[in-house]
């Protein structure tokens, strides 16, 4: 008996650690491979050594050559994702506060509508909008990418913000109103500053979702100078599979991903809280 009791903690201590190690490897190995491939010299791109023999930033300088338009594409991505995030937060915050605080008849219906809209397939929205946008000459404009993106960003933001607002005690506004604030003032002066972390988290999650969007961006735009980074990287593809410039694609992938990875590392605790509170992607 004593022996078993002594042995049980041994594997109980180590097994989870091994499991954690496996999960970390699972998540990071492909990412590591992208980074390492980006830092190889183009001449030994197909070298499969785990650590490059020679490190080089040639792939990165290639990506930012004036002809590629990658810098411009990054700016386009920033404009589209940034605008989507700001619009979504402005519109969504009011709705989320209403859903979290007011009791009204069709509240569950509204919640159900908002959650349902986030399940609609992007393609069924893109096709009619593409036709509409070509009629009103919106193709190759920023708004052609921004407006359809609201379809997934807004439900996501409202859902997240509702969860955050609900966690705040009602006494906060009541105290503010006792002190003479109107409900609108209580919202502006008490709730918004206190909800800032939640709003900020929602902003990050929305921004990441908008930054990662591909279907809308590839459907609404066919001019290189207005394409987002995702679309441009995918179209780096050479004429045949063989001469696909994988080195520059990996470098571009690293450039597109690194801001998100840094944000994730800094705000991981908040993002996890936001994702699980929202219960949605």
């Amino acid at each position, binding site marked *: 008996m004593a022996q078993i009791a002594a042995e049980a903690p041994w594997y109980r201590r180590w097994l989870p650690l091994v499991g*954690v190690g496996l999960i970390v490897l699972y998540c990071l190995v492909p990412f590591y491979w992208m980074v390492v491939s980006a830092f190889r010299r183009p001449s030994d791109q*197909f070298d499969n050594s785990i650590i490059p023999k020679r490190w080089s930033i040639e792939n990165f300088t290639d990506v930012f050559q004036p002809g590629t338009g990658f810098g411009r594409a990054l700016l386009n991505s920033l404009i589209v994702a940034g605008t989507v995030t700001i619009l979504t937060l402005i519109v969504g915050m009011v709705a989320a506060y209403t859903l979290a605080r*007011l009791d009204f008849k069709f509240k569950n219906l509204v919640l159900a509508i908002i959650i349902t809209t986030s399940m609609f397939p992007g393609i069924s929205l*893109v096709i*009619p909008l593409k036709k509409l946008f070509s009629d009103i000459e919106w193709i190759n404009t920023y708004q052609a990418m921004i407006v359809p993106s609201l*379809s997934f960003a*807004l439900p996501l933001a409202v859902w997240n913000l509702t969860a955050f607002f609900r966690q705040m005690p009602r006494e906060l506004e009541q105290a503010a109103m006792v002190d003479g604030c109107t409900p609108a003032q209580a919202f502006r002066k008490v709730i918004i500053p206190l909800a800032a972390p939640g709003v900020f988290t929602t902003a990050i999650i929305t921004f990441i979702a908008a930054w990662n969007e591909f279907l809308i961006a590839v459907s609404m735009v066919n001019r290189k100078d207005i394409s987002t980074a995702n679309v441009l990287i995918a179209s780096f593809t050479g004429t045949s599979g063989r001469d696909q410039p994988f080195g520059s694609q*990996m470098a571009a992938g690293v450039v597109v991903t690194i801001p998100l990875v840094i944000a994730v590392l800094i705000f991981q605790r908040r993002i996890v809280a936001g994702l699980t509170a929202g219960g949605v992607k």
Partner: protein
Amino acid sequence: MSESASAVEPTPGKNVRRTSFNEGTGRLAALLLSPTLIVLLLVIGYPIISALRESLYTSGGIGDDGFVIEGTRFVGLDNFAAIFSGETGDRFWNAFYNTTFFTVTCVVLETLLGVLMAMVMHKAFKGRAIVRASILIPWAIPTVVSALLWKWMFQADGIANAVLGTQILWSTEGWQSVLSVIVADTWKTAPFIGLLVLAGLQTIPDEVYEAAKVDGASPWKTFTRITLPLVKPALLVAVLFRILDTLRIFDLPYVLVGPNKESVETLSILAFLEANQTRYGPAAAYATLLFVYIVVVAYVFVRLLGADVIGDARASKPKKNGKSKDNQLPPGTAAATASGSLAAGGGGL
């Protein structure tokens, strides 16, 4: 609240007053919700209706007299009839099969892996910060970038073949390209399911496990009788969202393998390619069919398994005496089980 008075003496007059009270709040709520609802109506409601209408029309093409037809023509259900017949029919059913196959395979794999990951993370006391950080990285990488990343690893002389010691041409038609898409999708989203399930696991109080231990339950029995039922609500919602997300899969096969590849062509890709040729009628018909398919799957899933999608939001709503009014939900979302909101929201206990 005033409801208690009306409950004591439910006269018609009191009922009228209560309704008017609700209407006042309702009007304010309607005002505050209108921007969101209007935006959703414009970017989702309008396109859905418009796609339905569009699918009944045709544009372009060659008429009976041999001239190119200008403008659009009403063709009724011709677009749908064309989809189900002949060569386009084969293409449609192939895309339908691929979409379904990806969804079933990926979601099953991701759920199994995700639950396993969540169990490991729940047991681990060391290294939680690093595991949480690394689990978010596949989620944060844009799907397009992860598609290119896997395409690079699945290159003919890439790392996958080197590690496996094989000479497989992964991006060619056949099972290998299907497998590459499944691997890439599972890699990206299994950790995410793990994260959601972990949140569910953390709401289960330790006392429950202690009680099971005292009763002499085996680890397997503890897992099937306690853990699974208690994380079921969180898990069901995560799985439902993954199913709906995989049914509209586009980026991954499109970038990883490429367009016009029979083995990995999904309904989204098919509709996209049609729209790219400005054949909006058939494109809209494909998109509408995909939409209907997704609605049916979601409905069946919620009905059969009782996934409580809005459980968390409803849980904190104070119960009023008019209970039936609280359930004014479209059928499908209201299938709440008694334990519906237990784990879905986190912190319910």
